[in-house]
């Protein structure tokens, strides 16, 4: 019961944050140097047309009124119109969201199932060659730019070894995607039992997912190792050992359960960090997700989609962090709220 | 910010003289001065731990209507279990914590009513020695820097500072070669000596000692205690000793106040309290101290349960939930401090009813 009240309280506290986010996204198009209309309309537009458009778009009104209009549109699900694709931004986003979601969740999943055990083993075998290897990989993972990893992987696996498909999106031109249910190809292929499509989509997603998860792996491994080391040195682990509990129990039951708490909190941060990496990976692999869409819009000076993209990612990020906080209160009995 | 030191002011001359040991200060309590050095009246300190939108806030009753006084040259002990509010009273007296209500007079002047600058001047007359000496010394200051910093706040001119610093070191039993060491290069006992030297830089009248020996080794504890007693005689200091170590309190103090859940439940001369404790809590407390004498196998009363939460202190007598001899009235009516002989006061219905 108390957790519901706590959740509601946290949701209420989100309102000012969301307003702040909307102010910043609103500012994106309104602090552009020069008149936004010259970007929207063609350079040869007549003065009258410009005036008409200005009134039509409400750009002649004071800023706070414009912000009010913007906010009102947002509440009604209107994110503006994308001139490049000639569609409402919301429709474009709906269409591209599954691709991004699929890539991100798969990468995070990979990073967690590889990173956490490696971090644990590194801490347990502290100062052995394995520990040093893990530390090198984790320092390397945060040092190597993600777009560079992608480029090198493409060169080796596609150009040299010819294992991977070309970095050209979610499927080749000749492949037929599965029937759309969720929009995520892997999920849809399984749901429609389309094994051919599943194989192809797995082949295409492998390289971008590995690239992205390599960047997520490093911080996960590092945090797991460090918090594990701390817990292994704690008094209650010493107690558990002094009572003759087996090493396995001590490591997995006492140490890991406590060591995972900081890992859980950091997953939200890692996700926020990787949303930036996501954009870069999508550009490198021409992955038709939100990031690729936003970057293409930027290059075509079409700003409404960028605005929509930034707003959406920020909101998702905020909600993920909220979810992590709630999860934390559930798994850590010490937290009272 | 600071007042310029006047070399010929009476205060300064007294300070200098005390430093150089020119004034022989009387070792016994000066009875002639009628106004106590420090007087605390009805000091109440509540902390809000949790604000609620609906209903009253959750409040810790750290100190409730605490009244006591300290005479010049004497040592008052403040004892009790953890959570009894003894440290809070010490800090409230220095106004390191802003009290909820009450009055604190130093030399007849209410410290709670003065403004910032005057407060700073008044604080210098009352210094504090903390429990954890490692924490109370700035880790980035050498011993020299610590003392110089204190002495410059005590308004010594730069000419005298080094000489004074060395005097201070000598009076707490450290060597001049220790001046350029950092706190982590000292042992706990030495760190506490530095902290005491820093407090002495102000030639204070009152030292509030917050568990000064609790974190020290057994064989070093008595050294520091002894040092404090010597300094008390030399500089005519008054002490408030906050401690849970009753043996030490017995050894060091002239009078003792026993606290339980934010209230004083018994106060009196040390000899009276230890030879004939009146409050059942005091009795158990003294009985609970382990004695290094295997031949003394006396049967002791031990206390059931633990100290209740200070957010919701029990109604009536706060001790009634654990009291071995409670009767009906105890959980209804709050006992007040009743006077016995020799300034001995007890808050217990059992004593009150027999004396009234």
């Amino acid at each position, binding site marked *: 019961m108390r957790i519901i009240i706590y959740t509601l309280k946290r949701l209420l506290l989100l309102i000012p944050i969301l307003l702040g986010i909307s102010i*910043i996204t609103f*500012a*994106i*198009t309104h*602090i552009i*140097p020069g008149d936004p209309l010259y970007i929207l309309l063609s350079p040869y537009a007549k003065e009258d047309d410009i005036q008409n458009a200005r009134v039509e778009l409400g750009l002649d009104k004071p800023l706070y009124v414009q912000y009010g209009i913007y906010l009102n549109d947002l509440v009604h699900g209107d994110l503006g119109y994308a001139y490049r694709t000639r569609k409402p931004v919301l429709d474009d986003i709906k269409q591209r969201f599954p691709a991004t979601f699929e890539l991100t969740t798969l990468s995070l999943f990979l990073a967690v199932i590889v990173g956490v055990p490696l971090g644990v083993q590194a801490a347990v075998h502290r100062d052995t060659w394995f520990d040093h290897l893990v530390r090198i990989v984790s*320092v*390397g993972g*945060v*040092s*190597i*730019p993600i*777009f*560079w990893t992608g*480029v*090198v992987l493409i*060169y080796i696996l596609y*150009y040299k070894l010819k294992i991977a498909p*070309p*970095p050209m999106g979610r499927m080749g031109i000749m492949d037929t995607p599965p029937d759309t249910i969720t929009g995520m190809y892997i999920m849809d292929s399984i749901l429609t039992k389309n094994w051919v499509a599943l194989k192809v989509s797995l082949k295409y997603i492998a390289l971008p997912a590995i690239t992205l998860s390599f960047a997520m792996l490093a911080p996960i491994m590092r945090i797991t190792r460090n918090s594990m080391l701390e817990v292994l040195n704690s008094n209650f682990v010493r107690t558990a050992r002094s009572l003759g509990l087996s090493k396995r129990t001590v490591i997995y039951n006492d140490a890991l359960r406590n060591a995972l708490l900081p890992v859980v909190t950091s997953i939200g941060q890692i996700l926020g960090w990787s*949303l*930036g990496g996501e954009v*870069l990976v999508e550009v*490198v692999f021409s992955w038709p997700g939100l990031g690729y869409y*936003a970057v293409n819009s*930027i290059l075509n000076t079409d*700003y409404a989609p*960028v*605005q929509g993209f*930034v707003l959406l*990612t*920020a909101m998702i*990020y*905020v909600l993920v962090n909220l979810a992590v906080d709630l999860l934390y209160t559930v798994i850590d009995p010490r937290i009272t709220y | 910010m600071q007042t310029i030191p006047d070399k010929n002011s009476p205060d300064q001359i007294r300070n200098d003289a005390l430093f150089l040991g020119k004034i022989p200060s009387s070792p016994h309590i000066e009875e002639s001065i009628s106004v106590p050095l420090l007087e605390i009246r009805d000091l109440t300190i509540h902390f809000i731990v949790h604000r609620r939108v609906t209903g009253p806030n959750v409040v810790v009753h750290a100190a409730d209507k605490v009244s006591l006084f300290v005479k010049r040259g004497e040592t008052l002990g403040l004892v009790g279990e953890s959570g009894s509010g003894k440290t809070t009273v010490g800090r409230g007296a*220095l106004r390191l914590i802003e009290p909820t209500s009450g009055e604190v007079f130093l030399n007849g002047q209410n410290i709670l009513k003065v403004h910032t600058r005057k407060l*700073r*001047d008044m*604080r*210098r007359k009352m*210094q*504090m020695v*903390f429990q954890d000496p490692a*924490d*109370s*010394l*700035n880790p*980035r200051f*050498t011993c020299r820097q610590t003392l110089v*910093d204190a002495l410059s*706040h*005590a308004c010594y001119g730069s000419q005298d500072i080094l*000489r004074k610093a060395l005097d201070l070191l000598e009076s707490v039993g450290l060597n*001049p070669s220790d*001046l350029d060491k*950092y706190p982590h*290069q000292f042992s706990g006992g030495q760190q506490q000596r530095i*902290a005491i030297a*820093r*407090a002495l830089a*102000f030639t204070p009248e009152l030292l509030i000692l917050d568990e000064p020996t609790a974190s020290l080794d057994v064989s070093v504890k008595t050294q520091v205690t002894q040092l404090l007693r010597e300094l008390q005689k030399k500089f005519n200091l008054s002490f408030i000793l906050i401690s849970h170590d009753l043996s030490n309190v017995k050894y060091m103090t002239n009078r003792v106040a026993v606290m339980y859940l934010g209230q004083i439940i018994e106060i009196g001369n040390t000899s009276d309290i230890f030879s004939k404790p009146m409050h059942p809590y005091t009795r158990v407390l003294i009985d609970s101290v382990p004695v290094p004498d295997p031949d003394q196998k006396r049967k002791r009363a031990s206390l059931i349960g633990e100290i209740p939460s200070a957010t919701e202190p029990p109604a009536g007598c706060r001790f009634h939930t654990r009291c071995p001899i409670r009767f009906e009235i105890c959980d209804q009516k709050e006992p007040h401090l009743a006077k016995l002989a020799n300034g001995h006061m007890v808050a217990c219905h059992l004593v009150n009813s027999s004396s009234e």
Partner: protein
Amino acid sequence: MDQVYPLKRPSIWHVIKVFMRRYDFEIYLLRRNPVTLLGLGIIVLVTLIAIFAPILAPYDPLALTSADRLMGPSAVHWMGTDDYGRDILSRVIYATRLDMVIATSAVSMAMFIGVILGAVAGFFGGIIGEVIMRILDVIQAFPAFILAMALAVSLGSGKMTIIYVVAFIMVPIFARLMRSEILSARGRGYIEAAHCMGASEMEIIFKQLIPNCITPILVQFALSMSYAILDAAALSFIGLGIRPPEAEWGSMVNAGVGYITSGQLWLSVFPGLVMAIAILGFNLLADGMRDVLDPKLRS
């Protein structure tokens, strides 16, 4: 009288010796940890390259030679040439200069503003502190790189844009760190002792608090340098920030992406490699410094 006290007027060497003694453990740990020294070495090297770029670069980074297009690494062009026939090594050297200037300015700016905001929020709290923290919350509600993208879009391309944008997204990190350092230092006994001494608030902030909070800030500086390089290069990579033909690590990698599928790896790989090495240097240093600061290692 004075001669009795041998330490009356300490010599400058004595003062330095005493000061170094404070850090003997840190110095020992740095020496014991050769990886940290490697990081430091990389940083020194990269800085030297940045400073002496005009001397070190064998060619003009912008000179177009259509005859030499897309040549692989050779004795003449150690890192090959790009699609306009420009020497990649020279471009990488100039890019080092540009990126280091951007990262250093951005992080310094972020640190300066962040530390002040954090100190104000931490020490005074109250309404000002609350307002500062809520604004930081909003900035941190965005994934950092996405916010940088958004800001870069509205500010337009250019070196200054990247500096401002990267500084902007890093301010909250420094401010929060400073605030939490101050809050934890405030409860310490020596601060209370300073209050007892009648020290003023300003004295306590500048003499006691800040010197005790500054080391974690320095570690964060090293760490932030690596993020700043990454973010600046990534912005240029997606076409915001530094535009071609000016040499910049990220935009150079981007210019080479199209040639990967045809096997011309050197366009992207060398700028990316040099960049990764520079970032590694800062990460290693930050790592080593963090170990030094870890109080658990001290006992």
